[in-house]
């Protein structure tokens, strides 16, 4: 069974973007970062760049096979300017992007940046990050080939 997931599609699009990939390699995570000695989460002085994406909400339109997915993206950097630059690279992936069909056959009508853009420090590690909200209007059924 192929999972038609706007979140999975967002992760795939971030990983496929050359600017994002150049900075974080494969460290684009759904829901939570990885821990452990070589994980994403490191103490001050050893910070790594990584991106976390997840759902804020994904209501379906009544009577239609369409979902309005609101996703958060947190882009962690080694400094505030670094986090801001990574965040902007992530936002560019989804800003005013039109119709496309994923390899999973998920149809995406449109994606856009609809909120966020602010910077903060993580309360547990003090690592700088920027966050944004993107909206992805997608299908809930596979698009025929």
């Amino acid at each position, binding site marked *: 069974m192929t999972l038609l997931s706007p979140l999975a599609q967002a992760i795939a699009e971030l990983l496929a973007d050359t600017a994002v990939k150049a900075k974080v390699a494969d460290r684009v995570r759904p829901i939570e970062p990885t821990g452990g000695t070589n994980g*994403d989460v490191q103490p001050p002085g050893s910070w790594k760049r990584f991106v976390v994406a*997840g759902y804020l909400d994904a209501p379906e339109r009544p009577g239609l096979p369409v979902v309005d997915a609101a996703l958060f993206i*947190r882009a962690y950097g080694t400094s505030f300017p670094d986090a801001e630059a990574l965040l902007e690279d992530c936002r560019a992936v989804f800003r005013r992007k039109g119709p496309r069909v994923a390899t999973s056959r998920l149809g995406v009508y449109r994606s856009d940046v609809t909120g966020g*853009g602010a910077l903060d420090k993580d309360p*547990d590690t003090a690592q700088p990050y920027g966050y944004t909200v993107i909206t992805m209007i997608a299908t809930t059924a596979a698009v025929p080939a």
Partner: protein
Amino acid sequence: MAKGPTKRVVMNRAALDAMALGLADGLLAMGTAILEDAVAHAPHDEEKAAERGVAPMRETGGVYVEVNGRKVGGNGNKPPSRTRSTRMGGYRSVKGAASMAVGFGSPIAHFAELGTVKENARPFLTPAFDRGLPGASDFVLPAVGKRLREAPPSELERGLGALLGVKSR
């Protein structure tokens, strides 16, 4: 404890006509319902709040309504002004429009909504908005109707004229 409207709000509301006032009333009612929904689903963060020396998030919610860039209504302990909660969301008032914002003044509310490295996101405000917005007409239409029924004829004429782009006599 709820406070009455400030003098600034009273003056701002006096400058509006019946339709704009009705719209503001409806938006305030809708925002209040959304806020109550968000509070009901907000994570319990009393321990973390005490650790950080701030009020629990549930107690910091507020609603803010403005028309033509001027505040005309709000409730909650400290309605989110155009500071952290609304500015960070990209909120901008639009001339000639009515706007409503709901937010939480707690400095740790966005950590609950968006998550941290150690705690996964537990969105409660975005889902509350998504549940509440489709029912906007249930709040706005009765409020506008009430104001129109109470408005004197001269004010109705002026308001409708403004709506239609026709100068009243």
